[in-house]
């Protein structure tokens, strides 16, 4: 990686700006945990959209068609089978953070569905209060970017952000990195599955 690219990657001002471009879809059925996560993400300068179930997350991502209901997340002009371009414009999600245990579909189910869909390149982070190696391995092997033990702390988000930033920089080719105003940091570029430190 060239020096200028390293400089751009490490520049704190850019990092902050990049974080402000990052839109997180956060999925948790617990009101308390949503409130906590909202504060953590806001303090870390992320933009957040919250849903309280895996099904609502799929709906938001356009992976469940709601022909009968008025779907507030789709533009009025789009049909349920909206184009990929429309989906990108409407949601512009850069990161999904989901609780593991939820009523209805689990965080792991959500992970699998996302990885099987148009959104497969978006990193999915799973959060759980249970420190079970089998669960952690299953999620990482299922394509999760990371697995965070609850309660999530600010330091976890800082580590996660540098993970995401570093893997993005590593994936860059020889062209210099240009961050445009409206460009989201993590475009549709496959990110490697990182093992937990």
């Amino acid at each position, binding site marked *: 990686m060239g020096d200028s690219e390293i400089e751009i990657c490490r520049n704190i001002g850019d990092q902050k700006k990049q974080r402000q471009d990052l839109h997180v879809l956060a999925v948790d059925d*617990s*009101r*308390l*945990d949503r*409130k906590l996560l909202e*504060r*953590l993400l806001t303090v870390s300068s992320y933009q957040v959209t919250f849903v309280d179930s895996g099904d609502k997350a799929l709906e938001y991502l356009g992976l469940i068609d709601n022909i009968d209901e008025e779907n507030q997340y789709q533009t009025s002009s789009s049909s349920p089978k909206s184009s990929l371009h429309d989906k990108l414009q409407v949601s512009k999600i850069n990161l999904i953070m989901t609780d593991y245990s939820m009523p209805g579909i689990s965080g792991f189910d959500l992970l699998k569905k996302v990885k099987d869909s148009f959104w497969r390149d978006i990193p999915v982070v799973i959060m759980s*209060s249970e420190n079970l190696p089998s669960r952690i391995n299953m999620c990482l092997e299922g394509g999760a970017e990371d697995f965070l033990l*609850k309660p999530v*702390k600010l330091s976890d988000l800082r580590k996660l952000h540098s993970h995401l930033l570093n893997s993005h920089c590593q994936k860059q080719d020889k062209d210099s990195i240009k961050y445009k105003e409206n460009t989201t940091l993590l475009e549709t570029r496959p990110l490697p599955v990182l093992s937990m430190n």
Partner: protein
Amino acid sequence: MENAGQLRRQYVDFVASLYHEGFLDDQFGQLQKLQDEGNPYFVVEVVSLYFEDSEKLMNNLTTALQQHVVDFKQIDAHVHQFKGSSSSIGAQRVKNTCVVFRDYCEEKNLDGCLKCLQQVKHEYYIVKNKLETMIRLERQILEAGGTIP
């Protein structure tokens, strides 16, 4: 009427005792770190949510354990939630009681579960009382013109 200085000392000693006696763990400190002038009520809001959720969960647990045929899976689900929220707020003793409670659920041990329900209610009401006292002290400090340590 105590002055701000005395109240601050009282507050510091009181909070220290909560950590020392294991009622709260480091996670509560994490919550306090997330509060600032822009979000001065963050801790109070989180604590209020915890109280609301906990009352509901304890009611659900009481009802579930009174059923003719006890559904241990359902009870475990409620305890798991209670453990989670207690952990998120740093209510260590409540959380630890929930861990034991879940073990009894797995064993389908009704007697054990009933004992744990009593224990978890006991621990919850103690920590609720302590947190309310802490919040009251904070308010008194501010009213006396001081800042919260």
